[in-house]
C-alpha cells in the first residue's frame, strides 16, 4: 500500500535544498550556513529517531517507552526556558515549566491511550510516542508563550500591580488582566490551527496518514481526536503554569517580590 521512498528519491529532494543554498549564497543572502546545518540536523535527528522507533517497535517494553518519554519531556522543558525573555531564578523555573508540561500532556496522553485508542498493550510505542510527541510539542509552545507573556508583562507593569495592591486588591486580582492576556497568548496557535484546519491547511498528521494510504475519513477522525487532545493539553498546561507563576510572584502578605523570582538582567 505504501510507496517506499528510495535513496534516489530523497537525493532529488536534497538537490532542491542544495540548489536553494547555492542560489542564496550567490545572492549573498547569508542563510546558506544555517540552511545547511538545519538540513543536516533534520536528516540525522530523524534517521536516529527512525532507528530508535524501529528498535522500540521490535521490543515493546514499558521501561523503554518511559525512558524515551522522559528524554522528550526534559528537552521540551529546556526549550521552554530558552524561549523566555526574563528568566526565573534557579531550578524553580525549570520545575514550574516542565512540571506543568508533564501534568497536562502526560495526563491527556494517558487518557487517549487507555480510554480512547486502547491499543494492545496500551503503551505500544506505535501509538504512545507519536501521541505524546504531538502533545508535548504543542503544549510546549503554549506554555512558552503564556509564561513569557505573564512574566514580561508583570515586570513591565509592576507599577500598576503595586498601585492595585495599594488599593487593597489581592495579588490574584492585581494580576488578573495580565493573566487573561497570557492565557490568550498561549492558546492562540492552537485556536488558529483548529479554525484553519481543512480550509487553509491540511494538518500534517492527517496528510501523513492519507499519504500512507489510510481512508480520508479515518484520517480525519484521527485528526479531530488529536486536535481536541492538543487543545485540552495546551489549555490545562498553560493554566497550570500561569497559576503557579502568578502565585509565586506574591508572598503571603500579597507583596510583589520580583527580586526573589527573577534573575537579574545581564
Amino acid at each position: 500500500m505504501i510507496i517506499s521512498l528510495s535513496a534516489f528519491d530523497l537525493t532529488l529532494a536534497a538537490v532542491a535544498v542544495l540548489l536553494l543554498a547555492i542560489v542564496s549564497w550567490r545572492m549573498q543572502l547569508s542563510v546558506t550556513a544555517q540552511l545547511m546545518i538545519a538540513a543536516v540536523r533534520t536528516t540525522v535527528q530523524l534517521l536516529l529517531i527512525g532507528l530508535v522507533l524501529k528498535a522500540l517497535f521490535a521490543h515493546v517494553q514499558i521501561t523503554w517507552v518511559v525512558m524515551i518519554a522522559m528524554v522528550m519531556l526534559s528537552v521540551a522543558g529546556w526549550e521552554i526556558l530558552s524561549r523566555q525573555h526574563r528568566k526565573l531564578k534557579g531550578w524553580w523555573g525549570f520545575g514550574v515549566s516542565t512540571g506543568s508540561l508533564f501534568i497536562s500532556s502526560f495526563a491527556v496522553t494517558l487518557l487517549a491511550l487507555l480510554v480512547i485508542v486502547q491499543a494492545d498493550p496500551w503503551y505500544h510505542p506505535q501509538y504512545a510516542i507519536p501521541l505524546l510527541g504531538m502533545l508535548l510539542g504543542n503544549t510546549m509552545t503554549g506554555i512558552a508563550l503564556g509564561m513569557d507573556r505573564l512574566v514580561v508583562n508583570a515586570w513591565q507593569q509592576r507599577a500598576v500591580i503595586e498601585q492595585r495592591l495599594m488599593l487593597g486588591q489581592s495579588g490574584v486580582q492585581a494580576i488578573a488582566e495580565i493573566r487573561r492576556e497570557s492565557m490568550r497568548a498561549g492558546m492562540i496557535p492552537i485556536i488558529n490551527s483548529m479554525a484553519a484546519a481543512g480550509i487553509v491547511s491540511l494538518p500534517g498528521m492527517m496528510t501523513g496518514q492519507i499519504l500512507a494510504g489510510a481512508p480520508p475519513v479515518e484520517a480525519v477522525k484521527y485528526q479531530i481526536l488529536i486536535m481536541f487532545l492538543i487543545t485540552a493539553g495546551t489549555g490545562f498546561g498553560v493554566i497550570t503554569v500561569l497559576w503557579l507563576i502568578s502565585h509565586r510572584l506574591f508572598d503571603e502578605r500579597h507583596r510583589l517580590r520580583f527580586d526573589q523570582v527573577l534573575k537579574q538582567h545581564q
Partner: protein
Amino acid sequence: MPDFLKINRLVFRHCGPVDLVLDAHQCMGISGTSGSGKSLLLRAIADLDQHDGQVLLEGQSANDVDAPQWRQQVALLPAESQWWFDTIGEHFDDVDSALLEAFGFDEDVMSWSVSRMSSGEKQRLALLRLLNNHPRVLLLDEPTANLDQHNSGVFEGIIQNYLQQQSACAIWVSHDPEQLARVAQVRYTMQDGQLEREPR
C-alpha cells in the same frame, strides 16, 4: 484606650528602628533628602515591603489582618497614580456622589478616558479612588509633586476636610516645608533612615 496609630520598632531595608504614635485627626509631616528612606517608611507601614517590627491601628496589629484589608485601611498614595483601564469609571466599584462633588467633578467624569485627564485631575481622582475605601490612615508620598499651586491648594483642602470629619490620621511626605507647615501639626525630618522630630 489604645493609640490610634502606633509604630513599634519598625526596621526595613537599611532604615529604622522607627517609633511613632499618631492620634486620630492628626497629620504628621516628614521631609528629608531623596534616598533618606521616606518612601520606604510609607511602603513598610502599608506592608508593601518586608519589615521587622509592628504597626498597630487602634491596637490591632497589621499581622492579624489580611494584607489587602490592611491596605484598604492604611492607604498609600504615590506621587504618580497608575490607571489600567481605559475609562475612569472602570477603576471604581461604586462612587460616593457627595465625595465626587466635593472634589469638583460631576458623574460624567466616570465615562471619561484616562488619557484625556490632566495630571492635576488624575491626582485628585486617584485620591478620590483611595478615599472611596474609607481609609483610617493616609500615607501621602509627595502627593502634590506634579501639581501646580492652585491644584495643590485644592488637594490640601480635601485632605484637611477628610481628617476633620473622619476618625483618621495622615503621614504626609513633602519636599516643601511651607506645605508641611500648613498641613501638619507635628513635623519630622528623615536622614539616613532615622526619623528626628523637628523643634516647633
